[in-house]
């Protein structure tokens, strides 16, 4: 039951995000346009490039979708509305999202095309930049909750959300989440302006539809993770818990969208430099500050 509800919520959020994305791009609010263009993909020819690595080419879009859904499986919408309330939930989401890299390398290598391959390997460089900024802020979140269970992490924020308790961690996690979801300004693996779509370049038809769906699902999963780790999850007045979770998740996803719209794309060398020289020391500082707060403040 929980599985079906979470899956429907995920799909609904993806649809709403796509509608909002269309709205901010074209200036027109069209509720059915996303569904129609999604259906149109299914009718188009799905071209397979010459001498591809067929296994990688076919597996990559599906793998990306699976890892995005697996990541969402440990994130609660309400106290009991979670697919798997694992004892290692906060670690599990890292494990699931590590395979985004694997899927993108497969999507890059599979089609036997230069643009796609550069896009795929670029994401490996991007991972070396953002990986620590995902793991270290989550460590600080788990320190406050004294647990890796995602529902316990939400309960620990009752009264004071982590965005106030550890704002530095929130900022770092938010930026790293955008890099993980390869949204602008960190959309180096696809980089429409310079790589002709990068990992997307050789995909057409139904395969491209799955790839796009997976990418939007990934954004929603990361927005949901931000909500659970920093925005108090289901906590909020008047409305039911699941409604608060959905509202916050969508708000985070839209803010990622808008942040990307107004910022120039960052070169991967600069991204790595800033993440390592500034990001990692700040993430360590965040762990120290949270550690002191946990010990000193009752």
């Amino acid at each position, binding site marked *: 039951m929980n599985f079906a509800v979470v899956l429907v919520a995920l799909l609904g959020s993806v649809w709403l995000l796509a509608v909002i994305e269309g709205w901010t791009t074209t200036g027109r609010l069209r509720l059915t346009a996303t569904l129609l263009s999604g259906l149109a993909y299914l009718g188009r020819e799905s071209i397979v490039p010459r*001498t591809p*690595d067929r*296994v*990688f080419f076919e597996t990559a879009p599906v793998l990306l979708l699976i890892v995005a859904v697996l990541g969402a499986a440990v994130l609660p919408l309400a106290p009991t509305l979670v697919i798997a309330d*694992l*004892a*290692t939930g906060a*670690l*599990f989401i*890292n*494990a699931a999202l*590590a*395979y985004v*890299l*694997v899927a993108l*390398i*497969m999507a890059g*290598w599979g089609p*036997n095309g230069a643009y796609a391959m550069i896009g795929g*390997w670029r994401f*490996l460089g991007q*991972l070396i930049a953002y*990986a620590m900024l995902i793991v270290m802020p989550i460590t600080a979140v788990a320190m406050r909750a004294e*647990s*890796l*269970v995602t529902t316990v992490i939400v309960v620990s924020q009752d009264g004071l959300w982590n965005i106030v308790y550890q704002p530095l961690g929130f900022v770092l996690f938010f930026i790293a989440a955008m890099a993980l979801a390869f949204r602008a300004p960190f959309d180096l693996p696809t980089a429409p302006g310079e790589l002709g779509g990068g990992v997307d370049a050789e995909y057409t038809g139904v395969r491209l539809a799955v790839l796009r769906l997976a990418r939007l699902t990934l954004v929603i999963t990361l927005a949901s993770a931000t909500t659970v780790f920093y925005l108090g999850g289901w906590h909020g007045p008047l409305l039911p818990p699941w409604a608060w979770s959905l509202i916050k998740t969508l708000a985070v996803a839209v803010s990622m969208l808008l942040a990307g719209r107004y910022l120039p794309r960052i070169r991967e060398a600069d991204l790595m430099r800033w993440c390592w020289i500034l990001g990692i020391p700040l993430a360590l500082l965040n762990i120290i500050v949270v550690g002191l707060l946990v010990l000193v403040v009752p």
Partner: protein
Amino acid sequence: MYAQAFFVAVFGLAAIGFGVVVFRTSSMVRSALALLFSQTAVGCMFLAMQTEFLGVLQIMMMATEMSIMAIFMVMFMMDPGGMGGMDMTHQKRFSIGAGVVAAGVAIVVAFWADWGPVTAEAPDAAMQTRALGMELLGRSMLIFETAGITILTAMIAATAVAIPVQTTANSADKEDTE
């Protein structure tokens, strides 16, 4: 109990299957990712054996490690895509012999070793994580910290070695090209 044994066996066979693919393919990326999925299957075996933390950790760590290995293999091998038809194996007889002997020894040890009494019931996952944390920050702390510092030293040393030495001659060249 039977379900547990079934899943351990299935993931074990998957691990061996992907392990075979590592050596059967000529594509370096395929080979690296087959090794990744072999290790992921080992992680799934941990999960089937109710050691949740170790399983999730194994699944997480391997994704990044094997992907980084893949790019190094692509950089340094002569035929990374495996489409040039190059045979990249060597010392075949010796390696087959070594493999058979090692497998035989592993099987003999597995059947003859005294594994002690079987745990009737595993503690729940949260307790295991806690116990592991206590172990890592207690009795085993010195060992792990020593290992950590050693690896960090090796990484810094490797990076230092990889950076070209700046001499007066080549720094002048560099300025010219810039």
